[in-house]
């Protein structure tokens, strides 16, 4: 399984996502990147992240994304 940082890098290759704690505030992800990320995570982990969970707080950094995946039943 690809690590989250690798998936993020595929979406925005120009950034080092391990070096940020707030992807939105640091301009590394916008709302459409978030949609692309959700679609990729759904496909990669065989889940459907609920639409109500697609909020910036859940995509702030690798830790919050991992927490969201665990909430959706993914064992990391």
């Amino acid at each position, binding site marked *: 399984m690809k690590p989250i940082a690798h998936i993020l890098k595929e979406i925005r290759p120009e950034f080092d996502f391990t070096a940020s704690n707030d992807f939105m505030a640091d301009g590394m992800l916008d*709302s459409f990147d978030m949609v692309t990320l*959700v679609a990729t995570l759904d496909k990669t982990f065989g889940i459907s992240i609920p639409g109500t969970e697609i909020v910036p707080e859940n995509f702030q950094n690798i830790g919050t994304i991992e927490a969201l995946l665990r909430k959706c039943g993914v064992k990391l």
Partner: protein
Amino acid sequence: MLAVVPARERTFLEEMNNFNFPESRSLKLKEVMGYDRRRLVEPGVCISDLAVFGLKHLFERGLLKPDEIDGLFVVTQTPDYFMPPTSNVIQGRLNLKQDAFCLDISQGCAGFVIGLIQAFSLLEQENVKKVVLINADVLSRKTSPKDRNIYPLVGDAAAITIVEKDAADSVIHASVKMDGTRNEVLMIPAGGMRLPSSPETAVLEDVGDKNLRAKDHLFMDGSAVFNFVQTEVPPLIEDTLKDAGVAMDAVDYFLCHQPNRFMLQKLADKMKVPHARMPNNVVERFGNSSGATIPIAVMINLAERVKTGDCLACLAGFGVGMTWSSMLMRLGGLSFCELVDYA
């Protein structure tokens, strides 16, 4: 039901260089959101042009007579003029009878259900036999080509629905909710009396995310709209079905307004509805044409079924206002259900 769509088609691939984004990111967006082709009016074409074209098509084919029209509702966010009402413009251009009740309704993506409710109310009058409901918008004329948030998703269309009384005893359940406190998440800031259009409101501004937009253009807070739909629409549909005493599994199709494929797939997942029972293929072929997407969904997915039989359909619209609406009905017995090009 008849839909009129402009013959002019543009593809996402043709347009993506307008956006200030790397091609790879735009292509990912295309795949996820379902952007592909959309129909756009030529400069100067108004909703009355699409509507008159469609109604003349029905007259010429003997599917409707001008004198049969007792009411004409036009649901739009892009009227021909501030005044007069576009419904009166259409009445005049087609020489419809003077006692045809004409009314414009300022609604958008929730407007098909709202228009139907108004049509049903008018049909309660004994002398009213047929009501024409027109859901039409040409919002492409109010979008910035440099705004990736809006430009690739908008399409233009007019849907014409002839609503008439039926002898069969069939109850239609509907619910509508509105929340004006969120009116600013989807709006065209300039052009009304609050902020009249001027050379200043036409200036493209950097609005973040590398998008350029003027105050004369359509603005949408995409995240707010997305969360509004995911939060508010499922309980409204559940309430409508509960009122009707109908289980979710008993509904053949959930025909929802179609802003983009991703939003509808997430809505279907939340409601635990198989994607095949919530069609999401309008935006990829025609773009998001506001209140016309539900009728177009019927035409491209269910035309034969609703002409030769029927289905239990739950309609749901959501958008500007904010407004959200749902309706449960047996959809069938249609004498026509087709889509024509406006050229």
